[in-house]
């Protein structure tokens, strides 16, 4: 119990609490490249990286461009018996168009195009002022909160695996050609995963709270 009393007496800013298991620690910021891990449940609490902000911004811009390009250019082309059909990612998402299926079309388009796009834009909005040592943008906190809430609903990488499965299913029915958007989408998935690795949530919250003392 003496430990417990010690925690509540000191400044609360000097503490960090594991969101998964409620374990409380005195805050000691790890060096760049190191990670602070909860000893009780092994959740990574802080994982700062040198120049992470700049890298995340660069990747976000690339992803925004790639998402827009990949959704309008032809994605896959199928041909059999002299007939052919080329589709973009947007076509694939909007394929459900009858009755309640329309809801499904909107959800699919959201999961693979709009949610990833929105997350990148929100990330840029939050991080650009922080990285340039400016005061945080207006509503930056709400923007970052929204971006974090959207995270599980951003499903570009799942769609990529879906493509692989679909290709095997079609293989004995027709010949499939890959359009430019297919390769763009491949790069995009890798970038989204890389960005997740760079992003340290705690560091972002901390710099939004103390914009000057970074």
């Amino acid at each position, binding site marked *: 119990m003496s*430990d417990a009393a010690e925690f509540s007496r000191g400044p609360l800013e000097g503490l960090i609490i594991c*969101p998964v298991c409620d374990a409380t620690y005195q805050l000691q910021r790890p060096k760049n490249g190191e*990670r602070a891990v909860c000893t009780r449940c092994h959740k990574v609490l802080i994982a700062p990286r040198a120049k992470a902000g700049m890298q995340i911004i660069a990747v976000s811009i690339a992803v925004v461009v790639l998402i827009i390009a990949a959704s309008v250019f032809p994605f896959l082309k*199928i041909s059999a018996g002299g007939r052919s059909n080329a589709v973009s990612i947007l076509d694939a998402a909007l394929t459900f168009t009858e009755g309640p299926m329309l809801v499904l079309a909107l959800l699919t388009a959201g999961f693979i195009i709009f949610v990833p796009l929105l997350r990148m834009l929100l990330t840029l909005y939050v991080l650009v002022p922080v990285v340039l040592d400016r005061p945080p943008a207006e509503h930056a906190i709400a923007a970052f909160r929204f971006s974090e809430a959207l995270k599980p609903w951003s499903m570009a990488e*799942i769609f990529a695996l*879906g493509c692989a499965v*679909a290709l*095997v299913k079609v293989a004995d*029915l027709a010949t499939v050609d890959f359009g430019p958007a297919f390769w763009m989408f491949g790069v995009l998935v890798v970038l989204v995963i890389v960005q997740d690795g760079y992003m340290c949530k705690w560091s972002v919250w901390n710099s939004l709270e103390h914009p000057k003392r970074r």
Partner: protein
Amino acid sequence: MELVGTPKKTVTARAAGLVACTRCARAWPLETEVCGRCGAKLISRDVNSLQRVWALWLVGLMCYVPANLYPMLRTQQLFSVDESTIIGGAVELAQHGAFGIATIILVASVVIPLGKFWAIAFLALSVREKGGYASRHRLLMYEVVEYIGRWSMIDIFVVAILSALVQLQGLASITPGPAAFFFALSVIFTMLSAQSFDPRMIWDAQADTDEASGNG
């Protein structure tokens, strides 16, 4: 925390008279209602969350039944129309020799969803009673549910790609069946159900067991 002054015995925020912000990990006095850093609502243990978990779980399960009964894909070839359910489609793939893909579909559409229903129910029940399984075991389960659950969506994307792509007038065409709609809803509701669960309750149950058996 390995790099952050390691206490010999973990002290929970609740025992220290604090409440954690689960979104940004900031500490606040127990009676604080809103996080001053990120604006999240603060609650030490979200006990009422279990009702939300069960309600969403039930809707998800109710959607999963028609998802398996109705056809997922309607394939129209020259002279034949073929409607296949999720499991039927996987069996067909296996008969064609595509065992790898058949396995992916079965895992994503049957094993993961059913495992997820079972895991959420197990976790929600287990936090009510003290003791039982080691919490490491339960935590692993929670993580699996959290991170793998969304991959069930793959089947919907396969249907979307196939339906958009295979539109060869008169030769072959594929259209989505009603199961796609129910399956997507089922995945969404189970994701929401898992997100409503407060994992801190898993650890409380374990800590109580330790104290009761005198290992604490």
